[in-house]
């Protein structure tokens, strides 16, 4: 019922990390180089002919360009990325979404599918009934169509697989842990579906069926118990991988899920710090075995 541990008993999460050579880590204000002739990239600034870092991260050098890649930052959008966003505002002909980026992303009315798949110009009536489709708090899966001048992302849901999300569980992780893959929508064999947004939002829900009309239909019936168990276990596995800073993609999640089932952990055990490190170590061992 209650698990209280002393701080000295809790294992460090970085025992899971690779013990490779430490890269050139810098903190804000530390000197990168005194040499001139380098081009200044993101995360750096010039002062008195010397190059300093402005964020905490790893120094990356590509020929003459020096930049610092931050260890923890907001989502930086690219065109074609799959993101999951939460509606924060309904404005004229557009919705504003929170996607863990520096600015709220924009979903234009003309970028969503109308019910029934009609193709027509959006009328004033459509504008007035925007809130009936998406209102504040709703979760949407979308793709980045365009990037505005100020850096805000313009999204679209012009495909049957994108749209409003129904029942499920959202997990927020750092965007740098999500690997760019061919597809971000996976129907996992354990009875749940997972959508890994590039912005760090991972959506876990009961298995999505192909015939469900994407976007408008919301299923509010009770989810069966077995599915709920799968969703909870997956949620804890994703959180465990994120805490140990391991890359999150369908293979690593399934390895973690299988490892937790084989080790006989209960779903709520996966919240404990020592079980988290055990799972992460098992996943790493599984990857090493697969490499051979």
């Amino acid at each position, binding site marked *: *019922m*209650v*698990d*209280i*541990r*002393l*701080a*000295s008993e*809790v294992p*460090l999460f970085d025992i899971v990390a690779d013990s490779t050579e430490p890269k050139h880590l810098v903190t804000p204000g530390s000197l990168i180089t005194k040499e001139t002739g380098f081009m200044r990239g993101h995360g750096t600034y010039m002062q008195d002919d010397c190059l300093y870092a402005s964020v905490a991260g790893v120094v990356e050098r590509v020929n003459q360009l020096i930049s610092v890649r931050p260890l923890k930052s907001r989502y930086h959008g690219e065109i074609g990325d799959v993101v999951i966003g*939460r*509606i*924060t505002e309904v404005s004229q002909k557009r919705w504003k979404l929170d996607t863990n980026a520096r600015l709220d992303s924009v979903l234009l009315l003309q970028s969503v599918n109308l019910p029934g798949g009609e193709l027509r110009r959006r009328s004033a009536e459509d504008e007035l009934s925007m809130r009936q489709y998406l209102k*504040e*708090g*709703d*979760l949407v899966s979308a793709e980045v169509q365009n990037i505005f001048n100020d850096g805000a992302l313009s999204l679209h849901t012009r495909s049957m697989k994108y749209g*409003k*999300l*129904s*029942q*499920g*569980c*959202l997990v927020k992780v750092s965007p740098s842990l999500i690997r760019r893959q061919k597809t971000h929508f996976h129907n996992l064999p354990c009875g749940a579906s997972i959508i890994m947004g590039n912005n760090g939002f991972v959506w876990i829900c009961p298995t999505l069926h192909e015939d469900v009309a994407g976007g408008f239909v*919301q*299923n*509010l019936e*009770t*989810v069966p*118990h077995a599915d*709920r*168990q799968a*969703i*909870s*276990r997956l*949620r*804890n596995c994703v959180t465990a991988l994120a805490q140990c800073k391991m890359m999150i993609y369908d293979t690593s999640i399934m390895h973690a899920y299988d490892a937790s089932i084989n080790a006989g952990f*209960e*779903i*709520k055990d*996966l*919240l*404990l*710090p020592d079980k988290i490190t055990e799972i992460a170590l098992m996943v790493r061992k599984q990857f090493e075995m697969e490499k051979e």
Partner: protein
Amino acid sequence: MSIAPQLLRGPSLMAEILLSEAEKAFIHHGDDLRCDGRTRLDYRPIILETGLVSNASGSSRLRLANSDVLVGVKVELASPLSEKPLEGRLEFFVDCSANATPEFEGRGGEDLANEICRFLQMSYMSGDTINLSELSVLAGQQCWVLYVDILILECGGNLYDTVSLAVKSALYTTQIPSIKVATMDGDQPELELSEDPYDTKRLNTQNVPCLVTLMKIGNHYLVDPTPEEECCSSSGVVVAVSGSKKITAVRKIGSGSLHPESLVSMLKTASEVGAVVNKILMKKLLEEETAGKTQKVGFMR
């Protein structure tokens, strides 16, 4: 179950986080299986450490999932209250750091801090919790006052519980210097503080209360709600349960209403959960004490 509570209605704790209707439905339909696999009466993992602040008489840091609280206790001599000449007293002060959550920026955290402070004061008022006469030095003239300073470093839901457990741990480790009353020099008695810094006494914190928050979702109530679950619920109670399973204070939170029958069963559940939490916490504190002087982990993790 004997109750000596003082009921107080209060506003909702946490800022509203946005959730979609479907997500709320998903949380409502959970049948003793919450989103993270816990049952309705399970707490998230708690990490505890005492003795971090070296210039305080007692201190502790408690982390409950994302909620992080640091408590320091300082003891000082002062004159007792005129209506209670044979007792010392406890003074609570809560500071919601602006780092904890964006809502605490500027004076945003003041209301919450005052609420927690007042409820703690109420919970400790009952005579069953802590024996304040142990803090008396000279009847009617001098007594120990324990200033309990609570700093909320990070806010991840369920602050009342985290704060109460941290305060209990800090009080457990508080060392009160031994004091001797020297001969009366005319009217003024001379108080002599012991030379030895290790010559201290400790309070009996066996019955110090722990707060248990129960939020009502649908027909059931949850212990230790996450911010998402708090958003789905409209009402709940915070119950102060002492070590001897007695309820010393109750407070209703949220804007929804509670049926009297549900209130009674919630109080019963809270006293059972509170007793378990108290027992496990005391066991861990004793373990830490007997382990002796180990390397302090502190904040470098």
